[in-house]
């Protein structure tokens, strides 16, 4: 699926849809979501104070493990030390956080920018543990950015909200009034329509 291969915004008055599309695309680019969203379909009905959005996300990125960005080897055997040499500093804060929780601050020493020494009890076992430790889950920040996008994109004051995230499928409905089942169903129908466009070969 291409990024934003379907981007539809509908309102009763076409010019208003155009204006709202520009607001949404600004928000999407501000939150750096353009690459994560495959298809998006929004219907706004101001007369009923209703905002409905269905989205299909592109395949989620993989979990990042320590071995993906660092070399983990035996350091000083006599001191039971494991040495982690970073190839990419991007994940350093997350890695330190995880190591501190697991081994305690006193046992995790950062020698220099790219080298961390960890004192452990069983070198062989812990090397494997650290190599396979999940350091970063791209999905986690994606979710929070998605929520942020939904809230920023909705007209303010539409505080009654429904949302469902199922795998790559996201449905969001917001209104000022108590939520109606039919609105939520419509949201899911919009999602089905988006999925249908897959088979047809879609256009933006």
């Amino acid at each position, binding site marked *: 699926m291409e990024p934003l291969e379907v981007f539809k915004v509908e*309102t009763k*008055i076409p*010019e*208003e849809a155009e*204006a*709202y599309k*520009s*607001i949404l695309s*600004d*928000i999407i680019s*501000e939150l750096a979501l353009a690459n994560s969203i495959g298809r998006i379909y929004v219907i*706004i009905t*101001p*007369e009923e*104070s209703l905002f409905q959005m269905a989205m299909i996300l592109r395949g989620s990125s993989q979990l990042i493990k320590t071995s993906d960005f660092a070399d983990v080897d035996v350091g000083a055997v006599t001191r039971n030390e494991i040495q982690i040499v970073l190839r990419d500093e991007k994940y350093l804060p997350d890695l330190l956080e995880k190591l501190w929780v697991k081994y305690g601050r006193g046992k995790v020493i950062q020698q220099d920018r790219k080298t961390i020494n960890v004192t452990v009890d069983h070198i062989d076992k812990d090397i494997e543990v650290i190599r396979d430790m999940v350091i970063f889950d791209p999905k986690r920040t994606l979710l929070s950015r998605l929520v942020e996008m939904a809230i*920023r994109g909705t*007209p*303010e*004051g*539409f*505080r009654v909200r429904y949302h469902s995230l199922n795998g790559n499928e996201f449905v969001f409905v917001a209104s*000022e*009034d108590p939520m109606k089942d039919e609105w939520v169903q419509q949201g899911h129908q919009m999602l089905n329509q988006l999925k249908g466009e897959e088979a047809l070969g879609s256009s933006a």
Partner: protein
Amino acid sequence: MAAVLEPYIYEGGIHRHTLILELLEDLGGYLIQKTPAATEVTLIMLIPRDDVNLVEQLAKDLLGKLSRAPLTGTDIAVVSPTLASHHLPHSACDVAEFLRRGGANTTMIGLARGMGRKVALSADYERKLINEHDIALFSFGTFRDCIINKKPKLFEGIKIPIIVTGGPDLKTEDVPGADMYIGNIGRVSHRLRHSDEIGSLDVMSQKVEQVVEKIREDIARDPLAVLPARIMKEVQEQIPEIESVYTPAPLTLQLDGLRIKLPYVEFHKKIENLELQDNIHLVDVADIKPSKMKDYILVKVKRKSETGIEI
């Protein structure tokens, strides 16, 4: 009868700009606001109409720029439904900036509960604060239905002229309660910098000028007992404490008064007793009240018909 004063903005280097101020004083004009920024300075002035060419010549010699600022001496409240990212900073702040370029003073006001359709409302305090200004400009969004049917309830209790900006292209008559509607400035999430957006802002400036012109005409029918700019000058001369007020525009001119940014409790007696002419004090020709903005003083000048005085 005082000379007719014309509003102008001077933009130029700070070097030797005092020559302009000296000339202005000699001509009997008024300096409304001076904003130095590093090596540049912006002066907003009222210049006697017949002598504008003298100031223009001097500005040219100093390599500065003198341009008309038709909104000088107006105090405009730019009202946004809330302070949330949905409504601010974009469009509302650009609107305010454009008004300031025209010489106006603007107050950005974000209502506490102005969002939504059914739930939108304004508080008594907010309405009183807005009513202190010359004009209220409401910055609305994209949907025609909201602007026509729902948002006008925010105008209730607003006694000053109301200007509305919004996305759809509507007529003023379509928006109940508005004195002027300006389209093509709706909700956006980016800075207004495309040429069509800047074009809409230019149109907005012109339309706001029309409203201001109308208010000025209304005032001219029954003139103010004293020009607000005159009061400003007297405050500067008689109350030295104003020199140590560091807010922008310590004296904010309005079409029918001014806001003095000194604490009311401490200074209102001094302001009331400000001598304008022999035996005429400010309290004789104006209402002096606490402003809703912080602890400032609000002066609203009475009309000639009411006081029998014209200075």
